[in-house]
């Protein structure tokens, strides 16, 4: 077991190092000049542009930029944003944006996962019943529906005509709160729209995978054994089938961690939800390389460590895994 841990740990670190190097060069191949998009105004004279280029550090040779990048990374410094005039990237990412994205993505992924697993199990059990057919159709429809369209529809109907949810933002403009519960209530009220939109769009995916996975498990010999032992249907389904079928969901979750951090650009934009997804989009449009770099590095750290955890979890969950 110790050897296994060390082996996995080393390979995770190597992957991380490669990802960090790749991230740097990835943004340097993009042809383009960040000053042009950041400066925006054509009146800016060549002298001012030169000053900006100097401030951005873009007049340094590429290998100097690379060494600086690695040095800064080791001290936890992700550089400063071009677009927000020198605000540190860490304070842009680790702030309100990350909090908003975590809450929204975490809750909608969590709820969608629970619903997906339970409904998927039941649908597989009652295969080809009306329930099964209806849920499959429902999940295919919500899964393939464009998320921004669903979001706009929800805003139009519930935000404008029925006036029951706010149109934009995470809190009411200019409101003062007497206590934290009032704040939470206002926040959750604002979250209703994006939460429903995202949950609906996620359910289908988990549902379909879970349903397939359970159907797969049904063909295993141990299911026959369980039946032969005379166990009740409920016990067979939830103790034996569901537990084994959840294994693929664990590796799926390790991949989903990126969403947790990366947010959902479309939904965040439609609901003006101030999160990381929207930040990525803005940074791409404004050629704000330091911000993009920072997000990519943090994301790769998260994914690699999540995969490392998943590997370990696997070793515990599945007694067959031994290296």
């Amino acid at each position: 077991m110790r050897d296994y841990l060390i082996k996995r740990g080393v390979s995770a670190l190597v992957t991380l190092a490669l990802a960090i190097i790749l991230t740097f060069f990835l943004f340097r191949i993009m042809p383009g000049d960040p000053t042009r998009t950041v400066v925006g105004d054509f009146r800016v004279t060549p002298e001012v542009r030169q000053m900006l280029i100097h401030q951005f550090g873009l007049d340094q040779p590429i290998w100097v930029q690379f060494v600086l990048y690695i040095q800064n990374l080791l001290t936890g410094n992700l550089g400063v944003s071009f677009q927000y005039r020198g605000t540190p990237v860490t304070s842009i990412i680790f702030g309100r944006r990350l909090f908003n994205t975590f809450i929204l993505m975490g809750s909608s992924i969590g709820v969608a996962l629970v619903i997906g697993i339970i409904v998927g199990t039941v649908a597989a059990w009652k295969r080809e019943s009306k329930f099964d057919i209806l849920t499959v159709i429902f999940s295919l429809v919500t899964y393939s529906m464009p998320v921004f369209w669903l979001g706009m529809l929800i805003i139009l109907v519930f935000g404008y005509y029925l006036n029951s949810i706010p149109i934009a933002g995470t809190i009411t403009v200019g409101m003062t709160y007497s206590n934290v519960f009032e704040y939470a209530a206002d926040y959750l009220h604002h979250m209703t729209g994006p939460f429903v939109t995202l949950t609906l769009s996620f359910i289908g995916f988990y549902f379909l995978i879970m349903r397939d996975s359970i159907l797969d498990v049904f063909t295993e010999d141990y299911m026959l054994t369980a039946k032969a032992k005379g166990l009740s249907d409920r016990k067979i389904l939830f103790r034996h089938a569901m537990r084994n079928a959840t294994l693929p969901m664990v590796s799926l979750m390790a991949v989903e961690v990126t969403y947790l951090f990366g947010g959902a650009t479309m939904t965040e934009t439609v609901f003006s939800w101030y999160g990381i997804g929207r930040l990525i989009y803005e940074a791409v449009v404004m050629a704000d390389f330091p911000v993009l770099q920072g997000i990519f590095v943090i994301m790769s750290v998260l994914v690699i460590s999540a995969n490392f955890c998943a590997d370990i979890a696997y070793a515990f969950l599945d007694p067959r895994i031994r290296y």
Partner: protein
Amino acid sequence: MKNKTPIGAALFAFLLLSTILAIPLGHAAWYTPPTEEMKFPMMVLGWDDWSVHSGEALAEQLKKVGIAVEVVPTDDSAMYPRLADKDYGIEEMSYGFTAYPSHMFYRFHSSMDCPYCGNDAGFRNAAVDATIDEMLKTTDKEKARQLMFQLDQMLAENVPYVPLFLADEYHAFRKEWTGYTVMPAGPLSYLNWLTMPNIYSTAGKKQFVIAFNNEPETFSPMTATTGRSLFYSMNLYDTMLAYDENLQLIPWMATGLPEFSADGKTMTFNLQPNLKWHDGKPLTAKDVIFTFNYIVNQSATGGNAGEVIKYFDSGEATDDLTAVIHLKEPYVWAAEAFGTQYIIPEHIWKDLKYDWEQPLVQSNPKVAVGSGPFKFDSWVPGEYVKLVKNPNWWMKGHPLIDTMIFRKIDTESARILAIQKGEADTERYSVEPAFVAQAQSNPDLVVTHAVDQWDYLLVFNNKSPPFDDVWVRRAIAYALDKNEIVKRGALGYGTVTQDYVSGDFFPFWHNPNVVTYPYDPDKANKILDEQGYLDIDGDGIRELKQAATVTTTTPTATETTTTAVVAAAEMYQNLTYAVIAVIIIVTVLYLVYRRRKKA
């Protein structure tokens, strides 16, 4: 699992190496001038629907005169370096006006024919240069205007680019709001000093909410270079002069327009008495001089910093209300450039470096202490920025509202719904074309109309054949039906421009008698025929003039060096291609080998 590792590593190494090697490729030349037919790729700005759709309309019109243009939607990050390197033949997009026609210098002077300088057309003309130089030195506005008329006429004859149209500006206000000023660039822009102090609600509302899709980038006027940042500067800080609805200067903190000395190199501003900063300290001529010294000494980038750095020589405050500024040389727009620069308080900024690292108000609240009509109150990132009325502002009784809120709403559809619902009173930018009709038909909204500052142009690379031939440029100008282009490219929400100083945007500087090119495809065809651009093979596309007419000359020393450099660059590029090809082949062979071995 174990077997996969080398393959994975090989793939990764390939990815990494090719990425690194691809860096020089990103900067390889894109455009090759045609050698036989009049057939060109035309860059348009991919994210700008107007640029793309008007480009398509334009291509169809050019087809009728035998010029084949292929519309290539391009991202800005690819487009601007190509413009900088003059690595294109023809392109179409919007550029942008400011309050005075300084674009006549940036776009046409040969000294601006350098990477990222503004003269994207690569236009060089000694007579035009001389007229521009003379105009820039003329401080008498009437004389400068006559020179501008001449200049417009010279450009009309040379056609360095074809002006197409100005975007229209539509602003939707909830109907209870009034007192705003509609002028070029719209009622809410960084060129409009008049709206915010004077706007009020007939329903007695004291809070004005502007839906805005952007976060503030900076509140510091020393780093504000974009319209969205300058709009914050405008409300938090103040200037000595401002513009009226015809973009003519009016006194603002100053008591009148500046007085110029006879040689035009000394400019005197007189300030109103009793001006105060937000923290209660008096604002004097010393702060004015400090601001310009600060910009020059610290190489600041915000506001009119470029012009200030170029022309400011020295300055002194002869008393608390008189600021005397000495220029390095006379400048026609000196009053505009210095008068509309946001003035910063000496008592705060004397200890503040032009701080690239910490410029926002969150980390440094001092940066929002100005003397403008509004004071900074609070900013909740991603939600709103709240400004409150400055009760001590010099215009007595103004502003008429108590609070001004920028509320962040990301999409136009949500902004329009918010305005219709009353959650917002207007939005910061123009209503997007697809929503104009919806806003106009809503009884709760009033929609204003003006020309915007974005001017769409068809730009030729004046150095690249056949666009180095003025007759080709003229023929193309005749071949374009601009009304049709506006209809298709801008859904009709645009104003056609016929010359280089649009009368709709610059009423003062516009030459009413300038030569224009009315839509006349027959004339365009005739010109091209006469000039020898004939469709010889009958495929509907004109042939370029025969290669025989190209004369060979001995290359000069610089040309030889350039050729050598270009050849070296090409060799390096080919080498990179070769290395990448080898890597791909080796990887594939390796993978095949592994497969074989396994089997």
